[in-house]
């Protein structure tokens, strides 16, 4: 074992580790660490969603209105002209003596700005409360969408807040346009369930009524799925936030329906309301469409209800998921979308593999021709470098993207640079008549500062790219950086070890053309 030195030992160790770590990814084994393929290589859906926070603020205002109304009813306070605008609620008291009571109530609620103009109260949110509502809406959207996608059963969905106000959704599992469309609908579904009272006194006139007139009575006009109009009380009896569970079931005609259960508070409100309104109709509304409006026959306890009406099984399944994971406080919309079909990803892998292999072969042959055995030694380092890049990526579960593949291809060209610099230095010394042993030692020493400077500057560019790039471009920065760092080990330490081991042979043969490709 006289040929073994520490550099060579380290190189062999690194080489074997690199091969061992990259094999699971290369052979597609079930066990072991593996490189994740980016969406651009395996196909899938990437979306950046925005959140319409204005809508969240409006719905907060609406829920304040509901709670004022509920409090007033509970405490026999008569209020008049309760109105909801974009950013404020206003109302009047019929009996000024109630002012103290209602003001106490409003004081207890946090984040409200209360103004009294004449007899009219105007209630809006403080700037701090508005910011809180926005942040909460974004967080809630992230949680809700994640919940829905987890339940939908796709492989490895990613849902995360990105930047200040965006949501990143990545779905590698999507394979067909139909599947993609269904998932998009599921994400976008507000799943806003409301139970509202039909305004029986005026319902007969609904077809002649304008929305403005309806608003005067505190009503809104909503349509059912067949386009029939209903006049319902604007402030709902209760909404989907009180839902405990929702499941798909089948009705007597074997049509899919959704059964939902309310939590205890919801059950109590529902019970109270149905007891007081026997004989009137109750509208079940999902995302501003009335699904049914049955007549209340008796008090409904237990807090369960049903949404029925022409769902396909798939739709019912998705609606149930959406109801279970909660409504979106604010609608989401698409800011960025990248969807890649699996066949395109496979093409990209194939094409970049062809580029990698042909580039690799060209470089390997060129080095061998130009430098002789010194070139072959550099080639061995290059092969080790490739395995090391893959191995390190697998170890850290890094994502390989199409630009990442380009980064590996580029590394093949640039990693031999260190060996070119070293070999040129060795040649120079050999020409000056220095002994082989000294030429190798001195050559490595002279080349060092240039190699370090060169690699560090490239690394700076790669790090900046990583910090500022997105998705696929980050992949390029990753493979470049790993490639540069790996080349320090393989091209500098590794080849040096090989030379040391071969030194007795080189000294004996004296054929510098064979070993270093020069005639002296």
């Amino acid at each position, binding site marked *: 074992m006289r040929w073994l030195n520490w550099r060579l030992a380290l190189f062999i160790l690194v080489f074997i580790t690199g091969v061992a770590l990259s094999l699971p990814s290369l052979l597609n084994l079930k066990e072991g660490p593996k490189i994740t393929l980016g969406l651009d290589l395996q196909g899938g859906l990437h979306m950046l969603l925005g959140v319409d926070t204005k809508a969240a603020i409006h719905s907060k205002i609406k829920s304040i209105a509901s709670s004022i109304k509920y409090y007033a009813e509970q405490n026999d306070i008569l209020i008049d002209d309760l109105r909801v605008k974009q950013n404020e609620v206003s109302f009047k008291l019929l009996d000024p003596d109630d002012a103290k009571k209602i003001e106490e109530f409003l004081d207890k609620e946090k984040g409200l700005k209360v103004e009294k103009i004449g007899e009219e109260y105007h209630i809006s949110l403080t700037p701090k409360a508005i910011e809180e509502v926005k942040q909460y809406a974004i967080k809630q959207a992230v949680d809700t969408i994640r919940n829905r996608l987890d339940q939908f059963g796709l492989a490895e969905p990613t849902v995360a807040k990105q930047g200040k106000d965006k949501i990143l959704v990545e779905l590698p599992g999507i394979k067909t346009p139909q599947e993609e469309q269904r998932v998009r609908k599921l994400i976008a579904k507000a799943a806003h369930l409301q139970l509202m009272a039909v305004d029986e006194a005026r319902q007969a006139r609904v077809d002649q009524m304008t929305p403005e007139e309806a608003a005067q009575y505190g009503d809104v006009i909503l349509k059912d799925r067949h386009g029939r109009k209903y006049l319902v009380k604007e402030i709902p009896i209760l909404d989907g936030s009180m839902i405990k569970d929702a499941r798909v079931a089948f009705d007597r005609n074997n049509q899919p329906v959704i059964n939902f259960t309310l939590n205890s508070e919801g059950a109590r409100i529902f019970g109270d309301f149905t007891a007081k309104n026997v004989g009137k109709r109750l509208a079940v509304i999902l995302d501003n469409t009335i699904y049914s409006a049955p007549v209340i026959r008796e008090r409904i306890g237990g807090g369960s209800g049903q949404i029925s009406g022409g769902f396909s099984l798939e739709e019912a399944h998705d609606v149930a998921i959406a109801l279970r994971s909660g409504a979106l406080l604010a609608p989401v919309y698409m800011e960025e979308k990248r969807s890649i079909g699996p066949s395109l990803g496979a093409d990209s892998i194939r094409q970049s593999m062809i580029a990698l292999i042909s580039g690799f072969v060209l470089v390997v042959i060129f080095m061998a021709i*130009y430098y002789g055995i010194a070139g072959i030694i550099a080639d061995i380092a290059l092969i080790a470098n490739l395995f090391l890049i893959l191995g390190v990526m697998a170890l850290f579960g890094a994502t390989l993207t199409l630009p990442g593949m380009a980064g590996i291809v580029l590394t093949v*060209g640039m990693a031999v640079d260190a060996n070119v610099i070293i070999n040129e230095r060795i040649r120079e010394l050999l020409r000056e008549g220095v002994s082989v042993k000294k030429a190798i030692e001195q050559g490595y020493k002279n080349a060092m500062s240039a190699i370090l400077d060169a690699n560090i500057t490239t690394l700076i560019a790669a790090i900046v790219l990583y910090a500022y790039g997105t998705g*696929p*471009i980050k992949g390029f920065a990753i493979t470049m950086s790993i490639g540069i760092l790996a080349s320090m080990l393989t091209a500098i330490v590794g080849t040096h070890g090989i030379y040391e081991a071969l030194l007795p042979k080189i000294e004996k043969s004296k054929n510098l053309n064979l070993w270093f490709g020069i005639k002296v």
Partner: protein
Amino acid sequence: MEFFRTDKIYDFMGKAKYFMTLSLILVLASWALLFFKGLNFGIDFAGGTIVQVRYDKPVDLPKIRAALKRSEVFKDASVTLFGSDKEIVIRIKSSSKNLKKDIGDEARAALAGTGHFEVRRVDMVGPKVGGELREKGLMAMVIAILGILIYVSIRFEWRFALASVLALVHDVSIAMGAIALFDVPVNLDILAAILTILGYSLNDTIIVFDRIREGIIESTKLRSLDEVINESITKTLSRTTLTSLTTFFVVLTLYLFGGEIIKGFSFTLLIGIIVGTYSSIFIASPLLKILGFNLEEYRKKLAEKKRRQAEKERMRAMYEQGMV
């Protein structure tokens, strides 16, 4: 095998004015192109939508264009073949926020009846995201250049740093001029390519500068700056050419076989490698001279540094021997 004769020193500095003139023309022409023609910003930076569609037969472009004309969303679309005669790319400047019926769905609807096809890629970037990416991209360029400038300043004298950054500006200007000339859509991958050129070209320049510094320190007989530079460039010539060649090989294979999607990226790199290699050999070092690099002063500074270092070591040795 050897490319360059080693017993001959090439006279680069003697011909510097020709190369400087050529470069000046190229840079000015590139700036003119960038100013008058402008870059063709792709959807990453400008916002918009790209739909890539593959048919099972060679496509009938007029028929597809006619079909798209009838659609509200795609009536102003540009349609081009993409890589083969069975594959097309549809580009529009607008984007859609709708999640329930998105632009991919619209495309499928609009193309119905034009043959059997598969929508393989839909890239859509809204105006807000486009603006943010533009900002981030610019930041990345500035920070990369600053970082490199700081690093080189620490490692070398400031004129070396300035000369290498000017060479970088030269390389990036010409590469971007070529991008503008050939109408390559500028997306994030082009930014990555430009940053790679920054690192790569600097790499070459630094190796020459490293050699110049070494030449200054080691040369015992007094030589002019021109002589030192000529010798340093000659000595690094085969390294510069070789590394550029191997890198050029792999990028060329990427350009030829890597597929349509990374054509723009590999094209930019190809230009960058050629220009970067050229500037490291012919431009960076003359710039050093133009910036007023003074050999005598630098030598004095180095000698002073060496003297102080020696003094320090002497003191330390004395200290360790217990003399102080």
